[in-house]
């Protein structure tokens, strides 16, 4: 009985914590879109000349999660970043650093203290952009691809391209060959407004998507293949590490 009391007290404390935890700082920032704020490190980093050798050094810390190959994890916890457009990587890194994109796991590593100043953003982005992509990304279950293809054609092609290659000069990411579960998570966070640095045009475009639509179109995207010369052979490991 005394033991039950301890458990009850513990449960009450936990419930209290959860109540108090609701509505924290990160929630307040939700829905304040900051897609492409002018100025800041994004603009600066874009203009600098990349130093790939230094980019490799900076990348070492990234490799703990994104892997030495930049392939992330097939289960979608960490995205593939290999082969992403230089400009897109700069934007995302600068946005995470400036707290325009919420990413508690990566945030500490985006800070100058860990990776250095704006030159590091340029250097590591150039290094990552040149890494060959995984031949084995996570895909959906393939059960609704017809719907996915139609949705993609009607809603996504204009910005992300027929093959999901994106548009580097507009900061539209390459989404071909990305892990399905990562795509799903980002799509939902863009739709709900949680991902604050997303393009408002996209948020409007996908407003009416049902859950089935989201899964179908992301499954389709996860099966879009990157150009052959951008994809590593199976079993490739990054000789830099």
């Amino acid at each position, binding site marked *: 009985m*005394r*033991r039950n*009391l*301890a458990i009850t*007290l*513990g449960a009450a*404390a*936990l419930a*209290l*914590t959860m109540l*108090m*935890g609701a509505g*924290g*700082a*990160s929630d307040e*920032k939700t829905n304040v879109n900051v897609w492409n704020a002018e100025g800041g490190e994004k603009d600066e980093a874009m203009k600098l000349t990349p130093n790939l050798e230094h980019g490799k050094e900076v990348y070492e*810390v990234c490799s*703990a*999660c994104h892997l030495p190959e930049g392939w992330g*994890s097939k*289960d*979608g*916890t*960490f995205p593939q970043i290999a082969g992403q457009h230089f400009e897109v990587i700069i934007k995302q890194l600068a946005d995470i650093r400036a*707290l325009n994109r*919420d*990413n*508690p*796991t*990566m*945030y*500490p*590593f985006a800070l100058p*203290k*860990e990776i250095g100043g704006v030159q590091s953003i340029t250097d590591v982005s150039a290094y990552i952009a040149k890494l060959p992509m995984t031949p084995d990304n996570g895909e959906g279950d393939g059960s609704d691809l017809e719907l996915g293809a139609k949705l993609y054609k009607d809603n996504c092609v204009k910005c992300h391209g027929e093959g999901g290659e994106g548009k580097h000069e507009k900061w539209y990411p390459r989404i071909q060959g990305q892990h399905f*579960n*990562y795509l*799903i*998570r980002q799509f939902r966070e863009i739709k709900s407004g949680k991902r604050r640095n997303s393009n408002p045009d996209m948020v409007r475009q996908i407003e009416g998507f049902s859950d089935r639509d989201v899964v179908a179109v992301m499954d389709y995207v996860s099966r879009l293949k990157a150009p052959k010369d951008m994809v590593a052979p199976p079993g490739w490991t990054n000789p830099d590490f």
Partner: protein
Amino acid sequence: MPDPCSFLSGPGPARRRMKIMRVHRLKGLVIAAAIAAAPWIVEANPARADDTAPAAVDAAAAKKLYLRRSCIACHGKDGQKAIQDYPALAGQRADYMVAQIEDILSGKRVGSPDASGNPRAKGMRGALVAPDGSRRITEDEVKAISGWLATLAPPPIEAVATPLEPDKATAAAAMFAEKCEACHGAAGREPLEGYPRIAGQKHVYVLAQMKDIKSKARSNGQSEAMQTILDDVSDADMELLAAFVSAQEPIAK
């Protein structure tokens, strides 16, 4: 099953438990009853921190897991060089680490907002729980990594720009003996089972945890017992205690 009253006799740790009982009785019988009923208090002989690791740890395999599960990114090579306000892990008690990792995975352990505005420990959860909610690390892997880290030598204590003045250091030592020693051991070196070794832990981490436990932002595991103790400890005294703890050699010289 050990005799539930065995802690009332015998040397060493048992006396410490009686002290906990005394402290908690001051705070009210309800808490004392809860403490007395908690399984960790009736456990027989709490082992030294160094004895908690499994007898045979496959160090090479555990170290590889430590790399592959991204632990190294935040806690540094061999748990020695944690970034930001994350804790050093080398030499920590294995049972404590296992419990904390599991609590972080399940969401039981959180904390006040970190620099990114998210509850502390959410970042770690993000690395170990996949988008579909499944674990990226098995219970056995948690045990293996914790067991290995426990065998490693703790990092050297941090260099401090301005050490505590002698009279403050004396006051801090006395406060530590009164408030903290019962559970964390002399100078925070030999904690009871399930409690962390805090001697030599990073100042910024120790202070953040004390504040989070006092405010109940963190209330997992046995931090409930500590909440009552911190009730009448001021912010200034927490600073003092953190400075004292982080300056202690992790292993007596």
